[in-house]
Every structure is written in structure tokens, then in C-alpha cells.
């Protein structure tokens, strides 16, 4: 792009920023107050933490599709293909490996705590999954876990498990009258089941986003 076009783009973006600021300035209060509605229905949502209630109950459908987004991102990466001959284990690094073997179980523990805590305070499946994924990445960097291009049957099952549980709960809800409608008495346990499934699958998927790539170069070019 030539210089003048770049300047024009930069100027237009600056104008956009100013327009946004001007438009947001001094808005009257919103006519619909959802926080009050969330608070009103929180008691029958099955969880005590409002964000978790929105994420897995009131707008659980968004979350269902979002798990699908993660899965297809992974599928897209696998489909685009990492060159198979690059798929080898990294040379072991004893210090890093020792650290990883120490930290990984600890991280799994933290993930478990976050998952359990999500019902009544900040935390939940996504944060727990992120910690699990971090453990996976660490193990990958340290050497014990190898990259994969074509996940085997067990891994595929583990990757999809959270989504399958979520889908099953969505279908189960249809018996109540609507997709993803939890029976009142079971809402809490069903949400916890969904979250547990999601933690494992999302953790693996997030780690997979990292592991599905070609190997990490270390110390100069490889053949």
C-alpha cells in the first residue's frame, strides 16, 4: 500500500475512534436492566455465581456453540496439515522435564479447584481448562508429550467428550420443553457435569491448539 493510502487508513481509523467516543458519551441509561433479571432468576439457575449462571444456564446455548468453535479451530488446524515428517518428540531437557513433572499434577489440582469454585465464585470450566491446557503446554515444552497430527480414537473421544455431554444435556432439555432446559432439582448437578466434561475437553482442545502444530524448533534449523 502506498504512503498516502496508509495515511488515509490511519486517519479514517482515528476518525472512527473519535466517532465512537462521541457516540458513547452521555448516553441515557439502558431501558432494559438484565442484571436485575439475572439476580431474580439466580436462585433457580442451579448455581450461585451470576456469571456462571449466564454462561451455562441463561445463555448456555452460546457456550455450546462456542465449544464447537474451539473444536473446529482444532479441526481446521489438523485439516490444513502439519507436515508429518516434522512430527517428532523434542530432545529431552532434564531440568525443564523435572519441573514439568512437579508442576503438572499441581496444575491439575488447581484446575479441579477452579472448576468446583465456579458454582459460587469467580472461576469455572474455562479458567480450569486454561490451567489444564497450560499443564499440557508445559509438558510439551519439557518433552514428555509429543505433538500429534492425527488424534487416535481415545484422544478424539476425550476431545469431544465435553461437547457430547453438553449436547446430550441440550437434548435432554427438550423433554422438559426446551433445548438446554435443566430440570429445576437437577440444574446444579447437571451444570457441574457439563462443566466437568468441558474442563477436560476444553483443556485438551486448548492444549491441542498448541500440540497440533509442527514441532517447536529448538537450537537451530532441523532437517
Amino acid at each position: 500500500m502506498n504512503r498516502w493510502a496508509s495515511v488515509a487508513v490511519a486517519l479514517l481509523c482515528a476518525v472512527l475512534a473519535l466517532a465512537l467516543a462521541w457516540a458513547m458519551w452521555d448516553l441515557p441509561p439502558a431501558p432494559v436492566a438484565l442484571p436485575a433479571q439475572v439476580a431474580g432468576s439466580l436462585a433457580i439457575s442451579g448455581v450461585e455465581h451470576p456469571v456462571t449462571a449466564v454462561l451455562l444456564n441463561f445463555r448456555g446455548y452460546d457456550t455450546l456453540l462456542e465449544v464447537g468453535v474451539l473444536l473446529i479451530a482444532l479441526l481446521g488446524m489438523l485439516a490444513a496439515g502439519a507436515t508429518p515428517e516434522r512430527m517428532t518428540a523434542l530432545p529431552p531437557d532434564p531440568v525443564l522435564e523435572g519441573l514439568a513433572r512437579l508442576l503438572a499434577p499441581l496444575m491439575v489440582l488447581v484446575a479441579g479447584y477452579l472448576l468446583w469454585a465456579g458454582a459460587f465464585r469467580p472461576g469455572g470450566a474455562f479458567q480450569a481448562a486454561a490451567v489444564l491446557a497450560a499443564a499440557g503446554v508445559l509438558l510439551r515444552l519439557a518433552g514428555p508429550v509429543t505433538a500429534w497430527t492425527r488424534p487416535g480414537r481415545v484422544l478424539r473421544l476425550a476431545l469431544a467428550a465435553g461437547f457430547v455431554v453438553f449436547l446430550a444435556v441440550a437434548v435432554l432439555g427438550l423433554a422438559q420443553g426446551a433445548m438446554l432446559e435443566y430440570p429445576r432439582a437437577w440444574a446444579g448437578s447437571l451444570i457441574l457435569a457439563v462443566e466437568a466434561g468441558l474442563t477436560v475437553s476444553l483443556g485438551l482442545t486448548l492444549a491441542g491448539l498448541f500440540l497440533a502444530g509442527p514441532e517447536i524448533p529448538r537450537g537451530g534449523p532441523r532437517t
Partner: protein
Amino acid sequence: MSLGLFYALVGGGLFALGLAGLILQPRLLGKILAFNILGSGAFLVLVGLAQRGGTPDPVPQAMVLTGIVVAVAATALALALTRRLADLSGAAVLPEDDARAPANPRGPDGD
């Protein structure tokens, strides 16, 4: 000015910055960073503007959590494609002259 509105304004600035970066950055890695900054800007507006009255609103907060996961998924896919492209062509820019895109009116593959 309320805290919410203040961060919404910052979000507007980040969005515009990301937009400019996405268009002007020739390198793919730069474009991917720009997309993430653009997204962060939109997230700040979503939560900030909704909370301009001072009360926390769990609904946009949950939406942003969804959005962050979507963004990391998109970023991972973009990086995988960038690496694949670099493996195949030896460069981390879009081939031919359309690194100048998206103002380029003509697609590649004119051969």
C-alpha cells in the same frame, strides 16, 4: 465520568488501533496481533458501556468470556495457517503483492 464509560472509551481507541493494524501491517503475525487488539477493544466496550451506570452486569461479562475463547481459537487457527504457509513458501506474508490487501481489488492467481 464513570469507570465503565472510561474503559469503554479506551476500548474504542483499541478497536480503531487494531483496525488500522489489521489493514496496514504487512506481516501476518502483525495482523494476528492486530485482530486480538481489535477484539479486546470490542470486549471493553461491551462490558464498559453496559456498566457505565456503576453496577456490574454479568451478561456482557459472560459474553466476553465466550468471546475470549473464540478469539484464542481463531488465533490458533491463524497461526497454524501462517506456519503452514511459511513451511510451503518460506515467508510469513501473503504471497504476491496482496500483502497490501485489503485494498487490493484483484485477487491473486491471475496466472
